[in-house]
């Protein structure tokens, strides 16, 4: 026996297994983060949800009324994960690299001293890594808080391994929107990473 959850997806009501619901929610959240910098992100998401509901409906019948993990995995494989479509999707990649929503925070392995956290933050906001390092050193001297923050960021921020990640790492020049976007994005990402 399993507990089911009822959801509204693309205007349709579905009963979905609890574990499948968790998976679906994670996937939709991933898409939401991916499209966060896009002009009409909510429209894209609702189009995708409508398509998912179509895929689900095609798999249900009078004898099969509940969405399972398998159905969610199937729908995800048909629609693809964000990394699949940034590989396929038109020249959008280039447009998005220069748009404020698309750059991400990574640890910079090329300029690191310890874990590349300060270098990565510096690359993200076009600051000299030493400015960030001095702030961290000051925080450490002021009572050790810097060490804890550094460790959390080290765990939460992935290392830039591929070239495209290294391009994403370097963002636009500093402006208020970039900073608020980045803070919000990173907050979401940290929360997500903590859960996993």
């Amino acid at each position, binding site marked *: 026996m399993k507990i089911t959850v009822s959801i509204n997806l*693309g*205007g*349709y009501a579905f009963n979905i297994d609890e574990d499948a619901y968790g998976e679906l929610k994670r996937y939709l959240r991933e*898409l939401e983060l991916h*499209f966060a910098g*896009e*002009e*009409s992100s909510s*429209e*894209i998401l609702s*189009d*995708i949800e*409508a*398509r998912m*509901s*179509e895929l689900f*409906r095609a798999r249900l019948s009078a004898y099969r009324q509940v969405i399972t993990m398998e159905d969610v995995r199937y729908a995800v494989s*048909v*629609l*693809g*994960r*964000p990394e*699949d*479509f940034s*590989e*396929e*999707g*038109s*020249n*959008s*990649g280039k447009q998005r690299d220069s748009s404020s929503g698309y750059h991400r925070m990574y640890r910079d392995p090329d300029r690191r001293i310890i874990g590349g956290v300060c270098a990565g933050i510096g690359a993200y906001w076009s600051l000299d890594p030493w400015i960030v390092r001095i702030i961290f050193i000051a925080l450490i001297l002021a009572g050790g808080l810097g060490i804890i923050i550094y460790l959390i960021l080290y765990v939460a921020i992935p290392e830039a391994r591929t070239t495209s990640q290294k391009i994403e790492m370097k963002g636009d020049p500093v402006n208020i929107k970039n900073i608020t976007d980045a803070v919000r994005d990173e907050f979401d990402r940290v929360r997500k990473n903590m859960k996993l």
Partner: protein
Amino acid sequence: MDLVNTKAQMRKGILEYCILSVISRGSSYSSDIINELKKAEVIVVEGTLYPLLTRLKNSGLLSYRWEESQQGPPRKYYELTAKGRNYLADLDRSWDELVESVSMLRAK
């Protein structure tokens, strides 16, 4: 150089052109557009299409209307706008030029 990457770049470059061509044959439902593009092996995952459709719509090349459906909630049908038709005609010309240039180079 990486063959897979070069091929992917080529396909990327023509994806918008392919989408506009499919829609130019009459108003189309997104799942039908997807099926055509998949059959032609231009896309692999469906998620690629949705942001592109929205971007094409935002730049005024496409418009859509809602149509009732017997199988479920209303569906979005996409159409080319006048601007979209001109844009596509331009792309048709440059595609022909490209094909010509490449075949000229290959024939030498």
